């Protein structure tokens, strides 16, 4: 009961043979060696595993790797190009939008989607957009600041 899948992750194509039940998050972390996206819940509520598939932010714990066959996956590791941080990463750093950092990769990927779709989000729109990402450390305020700051720079 295995299948071969081919997908592009952070610009690089790869093929692997997986069980259909293998979750995309496990595939990324354990097969592709990308441990940036994290697993923090099992009910699709926390968003720590958020990555982009074909440009859409999704929870990679709620998608089987076989569903991503042929698609383009972008993870937190794929954001910084040539050692230069993505503006959203830079903003999270500047605004102290993280403490333990565990939710951060997912939070940044969702934040990026918010700004991609709405270049000048209001505080309310940012908070609504972040509903699917839980953070237990920051109280979210610095995260809201970071999203605003990144949007202002874009």
């Amino acid at each position, binding site marked *: 009961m295995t299948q071969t899948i081919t997908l592009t992750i952070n610009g690089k194509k790869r093929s692997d043979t997986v*069980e259909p*039940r*293998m979750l995309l998050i496990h595939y990324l*972390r*354990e097969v592709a*060696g*990308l*441990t*940036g*996206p*994290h*697993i*923090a*819940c*099992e*009910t699709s*509520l*926390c968003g*720590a595993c958020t990555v982009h598939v074909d440009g859409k932010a999704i929870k990679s714990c709620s998608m089987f790797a076989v569903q991503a066959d042929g698609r383009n996956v972008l*993870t*937190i*590791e794929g*954001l*910084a190009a040539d050692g230069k*941080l993505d503006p959203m*990463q830079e903003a*999270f*750093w*500047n*605004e*102290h939008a*993280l*403490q*333990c*950092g*565990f*939710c*951060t*990769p997912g939070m*940044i990927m969702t934040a990026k989607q918010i700004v991609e779709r709405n270049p000048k989000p209001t*505080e309310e729109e*940012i*908070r*609504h957009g*972040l*509903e699917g*990402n*839980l*953070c*237990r*450390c*920051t*109280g*979210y*305020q*610095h*995260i*809201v600041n970071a999203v605003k*700051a990144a949007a202002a720079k874009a």
Partner: protein
Amino acid sequence: MATTITKSDTLVGKRIRRREDPRLITGTATYVDDIQMPGMHHAVIVRSPHGAARIKRINIKKAQELPGVAAVFIGKDTEKVGPVPCGASLPGLRVPHHHILAIDRVYFVGHPVAVVVATDRYIARDAADLVEVDWEPLPTVTDPEKALAPGAAAVHPEWPDNTAFTYHQEGGDVDKAFAQADVVVKQRITSQRLIPSAMETRGVVAEWHTGDRALTLHSSTQIPHLLRTILAQMLGLEENRLRVVTPEVGGGFGSKLNVYAEEALMGFVAMKIGKPIKWIESRRENFTCTIQGRGHVDYYEVAAKRDGTILGIKLKLIQDLGAYHQLLTPAIPTLSVLMMPGIYNCQNIRADIVGVFTNAVPTDAYRGAGRPEATHGIERMVDILAAELKMDPADIRFKNFVSNDAFPYATATGLTYDSGNYAAPLVKAMDMVSYKKLRQEQAQARTDGRFLGIGISTYGEICALGPSPATPAGGWESATVKIEPSGKVTVMTGASPHGQGEETTFAQIAADELGVGIDDVLVVHGDTAIVQYGIGTFGSRATAVGGAAMYYAIQELKEKIKKYGAMLLESDNVSFANGACVDNKTGKSVPLAQIAAASYRAMKLPPNTEPGLVATYFWEPPNFTFPFGAHIVVTEVDRETGAIALKRYVAVDDCGKIINPLIVDGQVHGGVVQGLGQALWEQAVYDDTGQLITGEFMDYALPKASNIPWLETGHTETPSPVNPLGVKGVGEAGTIGCSPAVVNSVVDALSPLGVRHIDMPMTPEKIWNLVQAGGKA
């Protein structure tokens, strides 16, 4: 916005962005689950679905036979390991023997009974379903007050009264105080059980080095060194052959300030199978098997004069302990008693604690650990008293604050408050919300039939845990500061952080002290093979105790640097500043890097001086520190639905000297939001049979970005005299100040109905029922 630093600036006090962040924002940090090792196996633990049951039989045959399964262990196999320790000692404390795997009886849902080990985690998970346990369910009790009633099911058959301990503390003359009182107010107040919910669940990777007979154990813990000492005992290993590594830790909030059965179990498994083993806690296990917080039922009585002067406080505290003691379980309510007078000048107190066993996972330290409960109690009682006396809640507080000239102030509970200016944060917070105007708006709202509430809490807390005689496992902290031959500075701290930003704050302090750039300093922690020893990060202690240890290590180094500087400058009058030694007579100087190189090259040594520039300091603090502050919350209750709208939140905290305001704000925000969680949403709900029915984030509501208000923060700075940095600690302040302010606000909103108290969480339905009943529900 972070500040850009030029080298001549002083770093302490600046909003400097964190030095740990680049690895975290790029996804390259290493948490336990990110560790991969050749030949690594995976463990899944089989747990009790019952709140109490006898294990009649366990059949592991089918699980063993599944291809890929390497081993299955049950309680009998691990009988010699352990027990899971209780580090707290109280007179007459009953301590049940806590096996790492249950042998013949389970006491709570989630109690581990077997471990399945396989070549990958999918197979281990499948095999866990194949372990068959024949259970005989037994009667249970989950409510601590019901557990004390005659005829209740006995959690441990040997102690049918379910009482683990009783504890009495008294100061002053309480009976006299109550006899002289014009008014006595009484209230039952609960602090519900909470799930700490660190975003990273617990996890362990253990590797047995057969040839060396040595174990390396990676764990997501707040206390690597204590864990090592205790695990070595549990596993029968020599302590110097056990290395504990704490990689990146994804939050703790007290829940990783512990030694857990699973940590010893993975050590045991690694030693048995001779392969690396990984166990990552599932979220559901995190709900049912990691310690929980709070679990108080408090009966308060406060005696006062008609003018509002508080004369005495009585407290009967029932602590829900759960089925076992974890590391500090029974000590937590004693912290509540220590802080029961809050920041009020009341010298007559009496407290009685009953620690109660229940069929649930143990409670233990959760952000604030005992102090949020104490603050919630006294701050609610002061509001109840104010209402009784028809006083403004701000006025009654000003009346009772310990006065500025009273420090150091000895409390009736045996503490000495280090320093304080208790009125200052309240004045500032009232100013920030325009308190007087707000009360006028409230009066208008009330005539319009709206429920607008203003809630104040003024809190004090006990931080920088703490002097060793007052802590279960030593209260000192250690640091080693090493100036490398190149002049770069490496700091090794025993206070291993998990999100607090010590790699930045410690570097700020070290760079200032040594006159080097912040990028010249590296802060290392979390590996017992590298860092000499340490106690850990909890109780808002890392900077106040660990930072102070580093400060003293640097002072020792400075003396040595000056000796080398004097030798190199051939002078007997040198000083060290801005990263160089200067001949005070000639003005000639030699930079630190050159001094360091000379000290390691050791062609020539100053008299009575060894080579190298390394100093280790173990600092024993003379006292705790006592931060304080004032929070004001404005709420409005929707009359139709009972929904609570948070309209404003103002927090003014005084945590002593501020090293990095950006980080302090972050700590306050996070703390406040955890307090909001308790006040409004969070609650671990057990049914009578011991099932945790809020067992996932589907039913246990963590605060989300969308349901919290903008937080307005302010600070006053009253340095602590306890440590050379003047810092007090801020990790828990927000949580401690928050919940009573929110409840006071909603009670204030509903006070026209005669509402006097509401227990947390204040769900809309609870509020709606109160409104329906005209405040009488």
